């Protein structure tokens, strides 16, 4: 039924992962970094779902892991945005280069 094969899905997941990693590395806006994290988690989820489809013994487990990842991503977005808003209140900026107070 699913003709494209496992490798096609894994390549899509890898593309999402690389885009997220690059997004985390290049964006100076803290919310841009958060968007990158979301992309990375989505790439991992695509892999989970692909393996759950192509490996019948992993069918339920892959979907449950994907559900846990989705919940974790929601929690992470909430706490990260709270931190970003607090940072913005203190510094009136969301530039991650400014957050260097902990630099040793």
């Amino acid at each position: 039924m699913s003709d494209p094969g496992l490798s096609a899905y894994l390549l899509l997941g890898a593309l999402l992962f690389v885009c997220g990693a690059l997004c985390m590395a290049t964006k100076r806006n803290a919310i841009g970094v958060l968007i990158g994290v979301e992309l990375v988690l989505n790439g991992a989820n695509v892999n989970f779902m692909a393996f759950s489809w192509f490996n019948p013994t992993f069918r339920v487990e892959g979907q449950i892991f994907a559900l846990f990842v989705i919940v974790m991503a929601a929690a992470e977005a909430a706490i990260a945005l709270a931190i970003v808003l607090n940072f913005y209140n203190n510094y009136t900026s969301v530039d991650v280069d400014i957050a260097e107070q902990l630099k040793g």
Partner: protein
Amino acid sequence: MTLTQFLFWTIAALTGLSAIMVVLTQNIVRAAAWLLFTLAGTAGIYFLLGSDFIGATQLIVYVGGTLVLVVFGVMLTAQGPFVNMKAGAGDWAVSLIVGVALYAVLAVSTLLTAWTGEYPEPVDERSSANVIVLGQALTGIREVQPRTVLAAQRGYTRVSYILPFEIVSVHLVVVLVGAAYLARARRRTSRMPEGVGG
């Protein structure tokens, strides 16, 4: 080209292009908009992979919840110079090289691996992981065929995900209380010194 192939390549192209545009665009509002298309395309991929429940959850939680959260964050913090924050040309060159190299490594290792079970059997109604099977697995009602000798001696085994489910639930409550505590409205009592604030 079958319908499944056509759907997969269309949705995958849309998702991949949107993900690349998230990286390339400098405007944070546009990045959030491209992220919307990426998440919706990922939901389409989940539908193609035969799990309608996860696709619907992706649409509801990600597109409906997390993305709205991100857009609110953008709106609350996007003022003038923070909408467009450009990275330097050197940063772009380095990140482009690193990204292409990383993707090459992942793609080559994916294509060179001999994956077994490449073409799955068509699933029947009972074994497809619909919401009933997922709920049974989460609460530990689902019985699975034992695969090891030791488990086969005891008969059917039950695989339960109720402990991770509880941990995730408590985690979500703690995180949301913490987020509400961190982001609560309060008067700024003392500003940071100018030297620290940059």
